[in-house]
């Protein structure tokens, strides 16, 4: 298995925010993690990434145990992180924001997963135009593209993407969606947290629905389509 999360438990103080989450992602798959706010979707990504410390469980990535490892080790293992609210470095230029993502500072051309600046600019033409601008001066859509590009520069085989379309205009939402699809075609697996069902369903191969702190449904997009009850319980009003 490519990424295997098993029985993951995370606490915020006394609050048991992840209560035994299990999910997996296969190679070159896009998996969407859906559910209403406050269910623990972002926390799941953060717990994998080491941004919050999980209490118990198992996280295996490409055969290596990354449970409870600090973020830089998880990143080195080949996982890229595109956080909620993008967290662009505001006082760095676009190009520096990208370059800082390169492991060790030099693009390893021999790695088939490696991304060069040229490749990034090819996928994100809007960034090329803005390459010398400060991160703080970008629009929301550009920041989102930059956050994805920055993660790609680390040559990840898996991307954790948290709410990439939040707060973006519809046309930009489509662009972000298409970029994620393109990246996946180039061989990057994606674990996606997304509240925009349209985006999620059109991208994902498989879907997990989260209820409070737990996984309530697993299936393919087709299976979710055929299951109005699950949709009603976990997504709709």
């Amino acid at each position, binding site marked *: 298995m490519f990424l295997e999360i098993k029985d993951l438990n995370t606490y915020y103080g006394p609050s048991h925010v992840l209560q035994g989450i299990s999910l997996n992602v296969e190679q070159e798959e896009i998996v969407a993690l859906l559910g209403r706010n406050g269910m623990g979707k972002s926390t799941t990504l953060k717990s994998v990434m080491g941004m919050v410390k999980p209490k118990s469980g198992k996280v295996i990535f490409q055969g290596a145990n990354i449970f409870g490892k600090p*973020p830089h080790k998880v990143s080195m293992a080949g996982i890229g992180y595109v956080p909620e609210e993008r967290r662009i470095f505001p006082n760095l230029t676009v190009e520096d924001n990208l370059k800082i993502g390169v492991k060790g500072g030099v693009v390893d051309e021999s790695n088939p997963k490696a991304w060069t600046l040229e490749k990034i600019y090819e996928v994100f033409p809007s960034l090329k135009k803005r390459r010398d601008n400060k991160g703080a001066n970008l629009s929301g859509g550009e920041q989102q593209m930059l956050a994805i590009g920055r993660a790609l520069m680390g040559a990840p085989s898996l991307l954790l993407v948290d709410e990439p379309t939040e707060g973006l205009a519809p046309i930009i939402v489509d662009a972000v969606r298409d970029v994620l699809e393109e990246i996946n075609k180039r061989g990057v697996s994606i674990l996606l947290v997304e509240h925009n069902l349209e985006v999620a369903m059109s991208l994902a191969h498989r879907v997990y629905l989260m209820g409070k702190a737990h996984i309530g449904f697993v299936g393919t997009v087709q299976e979710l389509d055929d299951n109005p009850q699950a949709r009603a319980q976990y997504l709709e009003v």
Partner: protein
Amino acid sequence: MSPVTAMYVAQAIHGLTYGMLLFLVASGLTLIFGMMGILNLAHASFFMLSAYFCYQVVAWTDSFWMALILAPLGTGLIGVFVERFLLRKVQQYNLGHIGDLLLTLGIALVIAEGVKTIWGTESHQVVIPPSLEGLVSVAGLEYPIYRLFIIGLAAAILSALAFILYKTRLGMIIRAAVSDADMVSALGINMPRVFMFVFGVGTIMAGVAGVAAAPMLTVFPGLADQIGLDAFVVVVVGGFGSLFGAVVVSLFLGELNAFGIQFIPRLAPVLVFLFMALVLSFKPMGFFGERDD
């Protein structure tokens, strides 16, 4: 040049010398605060410690230049030790700022008392190396070469710092970490190691300032007092973590000091604190700061 103008120029250069020294001390303090949220109260003590090391190295080797290299390095080593084994441990306790402040305060006390124990309470003279002795005449103005040397040395280090910060990958990491260290570590960068490095470099810079100041101010146990307090003012007023703020405020304080002594000698030392109280009252985050802690 009229004597009055000459006096002003001399005073301005005086201010610049002190401002540059101050910046050497304050920049490390600022970077450490910006990245780690730690206000290191022992920072100026490292400045003093290095001055004592300088005195000792000169006493042993008779070479100021040797001291300029060895003293800051020795100080830096101690700084790295403090970060790695003391600060990191305290940070795990979740005492908030009180823990950091009190630990570094304790270290400052130990250094202050330690130098008294080892070198005594009297002042020690470090002689200016012969090559930097004497006066130089610039545009009809006589000026001590050594002070110009300090300005030059500080400018060189500043340029090196600016180069590292703005032209190298390491600098990129540091600048990014000032705004969001967690995110930097999610890109595969070992932040604890970067912290240690910055702490070490900051200490070394304070150490260089200490060596440079030694022949000018003489080496005595109260050496760290004024520059230490001024450096805190720089960090606080410049805006916790803003390097640009630190440059501006350091140079400003240098001149404020120099001209304050000229015009209102009695109140000159008060001005700095008055200035800080004023700024904090109206801008609790300092001039260039956004950090909310």
